[in-house]
């Protein structure tokens, strides 16, 4: 090593941070938004009204619907509504010839009546959740790239700690309004103070994709037959083989109570029914894991569907799995109630800010040498990518919400068009950043994002009957909270745009002051 250890680590931190920063910013921002996945979906499909929870009635309704519409399916899946997700979702897999996979169909039902609900087609919060780790790429490339990014983030955090010399001395230091100094202070303060969260979220993401990151231990024990590994670690609820004789399925509702007797606490999250029309049918009742931190990889109670006989209960998780499950659960935050969800959201934004400030610092440090404001090609490239990946992405998120309200309800492939508008907006953001000078592009994009976000409540009021006054009066806090959060984000972005414009003036005036004496000197000469 030619330089010192710390210099080498600083080099690694700088260059890994730059090359993966843009991608990481998008992963962290969409991941943060995904903490409000169900809430976003509720806002994007407002036709689904919130009903008091009654699991027995929901299951009975779902069974009646499925028996009418999917009696010959090979499997039924029933997801019960909960405090966050008002819809009763039923899905079935059509019976298929051996060796083929039957097609899946999903419908949303009213949990009280069991009638199908006509909602606008939308991917809702699911889009951010999926993009967060699949990056809209074909399987498995998105996951591999996201996992690689997580690995880089982990290295970035560790090299960052090493690079940051006075980690304890500067613990409480943040000096605003000092240009480059403030960005560095902010980067350090957010990095150090929220370090437990950064480490937890990054390390747990590596655990979630453990089999992608470190397949060696699995391959060593199982060879090429990795399917066996997954079967042994995550035993699928037993899929009974159909006998071909028609059978009569018992009412499902009483099994909820029977299953609950096998658990010390908790509620039923979902049910699956195998071969519902066959004599050899089976019912699996799954526990909802939202009351524990450790993620539950499906603890289920199984019954025979025609006789009601108990078939089996999933045993307690072994310790290594419970530890793995804890990281999984901590990452996902399924256990989080409304308040904890906000805590996750805030820390998620802090992680996003850590990456964003890092990118700004990289460029700011190098741009200082070019006082006249004309950047060489490579710095201009970084600047354009910074603008497009940060403010451009924020604009795209707002456009995604706008598309949900403005696209005609009858449009074919409507949900796809929402996603397309997101990417079109992002692409236009890139184009705009190329065409406009750096600071102007920042101000204009942040300003546009501010306008779009702040106007979301207004847009909602003009296009749907679920506006703020209505949702507040009905106590629909998810709907009202979404509107208000958008308004708040709009105000914050407006502040950011204003800040950016003002600092531009400050720079320009100091440049003029600096330029003036030089020209005087030249005149004297």
């Amino acid at each position, binding site marked *: 090593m030619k330089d010192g250890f710390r210099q080498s680590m600083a080099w690694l931190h700088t260059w890994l941070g730059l090359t993966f920063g843009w991608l990481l910013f998008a992963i962290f921002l969409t991941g943060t938004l995904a903490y409000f996945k169900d809430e976003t979906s509720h806002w994007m499909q407002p036709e689904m009204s919130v009903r008091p929870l009654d699991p027995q009635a929901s299951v009975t309704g779902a069974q009646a619907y499925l028996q009418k519409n999917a009696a010959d399916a090979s499997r039924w899946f029933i997801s019960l509504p909960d405090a966050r997700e008002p819809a009763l979702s039923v899905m079935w897999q059509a019976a298929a010839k051996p060796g083929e996979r039957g097609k899946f169909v999903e419908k949303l039902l009213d949990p009280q009546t069991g009638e199908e609900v006509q909602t606008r087609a939308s991917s809702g919060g699911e889009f951010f959740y999926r993009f967060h780790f699949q990056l809209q790429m074909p399987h498995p490339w998105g996951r591999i790239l996201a996992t690689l990014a997580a690995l880089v983030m982990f290295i970035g955090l560790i090299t960052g700690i090493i690079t940051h010399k006075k980690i304890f*001395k500067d*613990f*409480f*230091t*943040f*000096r*605003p309004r000092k240009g480059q100094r403030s960005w560095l202070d902010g980067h350090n*303060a*957010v990095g150090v*103070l*929220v370090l*437990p*969260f950064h480490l*937890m979220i990054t390390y747990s993401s590596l655990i979630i994709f453990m089999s992608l990151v470190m397949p060696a231990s699995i391959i060593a024990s199982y060879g090429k037959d990795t399917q066996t590994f997954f079967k042994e670690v995550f035993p699928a609820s037993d899929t009974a083989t159909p006998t071909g004789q028609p059978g009569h399925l018992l009412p499902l509702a009483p099994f909820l109570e029977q299953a609950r007797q096998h658990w010390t606490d908790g509620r039923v999250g979902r049910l699956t029914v195998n071969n519902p029309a066959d004599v050899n049918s089976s019912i699996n009742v799954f526990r909802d894991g939202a009351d*524990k*931190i*450790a993620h539950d990889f499906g603890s289920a109670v199984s019954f025979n569907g025609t006789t009601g006989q108990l078939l089996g209960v999933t045993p307690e998780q072994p310790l290594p799995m419970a530890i793995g499950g*804890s990281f999984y659960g*901590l990452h996902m935050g399924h256990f989080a109630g409304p*308040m*904890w969800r906000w*805590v996750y959201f*805030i*820390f998620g934004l*802090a992680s996003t800010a850590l990456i964003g400030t890092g990118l700004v610092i990289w460029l700011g440090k190098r741009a200082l040498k070019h006082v006249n404001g004309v950047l060489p090609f490579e710095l201009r490239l970084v600047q354009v990518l910074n603008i497009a990946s940060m403010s451009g992405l924020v604009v795209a998120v707002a456009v995604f919400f706008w598309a949900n309200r403005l696209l005609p309800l009858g449009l074919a492939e409507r949900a796809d068009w929402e996603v397309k508008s997101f990417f079109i907006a992002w692409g236009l953001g890139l184009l705009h950043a190329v065409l406009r000078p750096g600071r102007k592009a920042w101000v204009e994009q942040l300003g546009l994002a501010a306008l779009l976000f702040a106007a979301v409540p207004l847009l909602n009021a003009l296009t749907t009957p679920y506006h703020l006054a209505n949702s507040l009066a009905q106590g629909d806090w998810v709907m009202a909270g979404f509107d208000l959060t958008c308004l708040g984000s709009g105000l914050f972005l407006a502040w950011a745009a204003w800040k950016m414009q003002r600092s531009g003036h400050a720079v320009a005036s100091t440049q003029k002051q600096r330029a003036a004496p030089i020209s005087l000197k030249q005149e004297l000469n």
Partner: protein
Amino acid sequence: MLLPLLLCYGGFAALYLSMDRHHRDLLGSTPSARRRQGLKVGGWLLQVLALGAAVALKGWAMGLVLWSAVLMFSGLFMVLLLPYRPRLVLALAGVSVLLSPIAAFTQL
């Protein structure tokens, strides 16, 4: 939730004042060695108490999560508020230390 937050915040404020530079910034004088030591020990003690309170309130699994969240939140809040309203940071620290016994009585 409230008790660990109050203790954590008070602890951070004490640790902040235990550093010469910050003590000078906020109170205009360098602390005596005894005072510095007292603030340091008190600050750490409050953090440990916050952990104890979180675990007592929520059990180990949720308590540890709660404590980390409160630690990060109060630290971030204080550091972002300090450059703008340093006096308010100090006043809030005083209030939180005074309120914590009351919170302890009602919550534990």
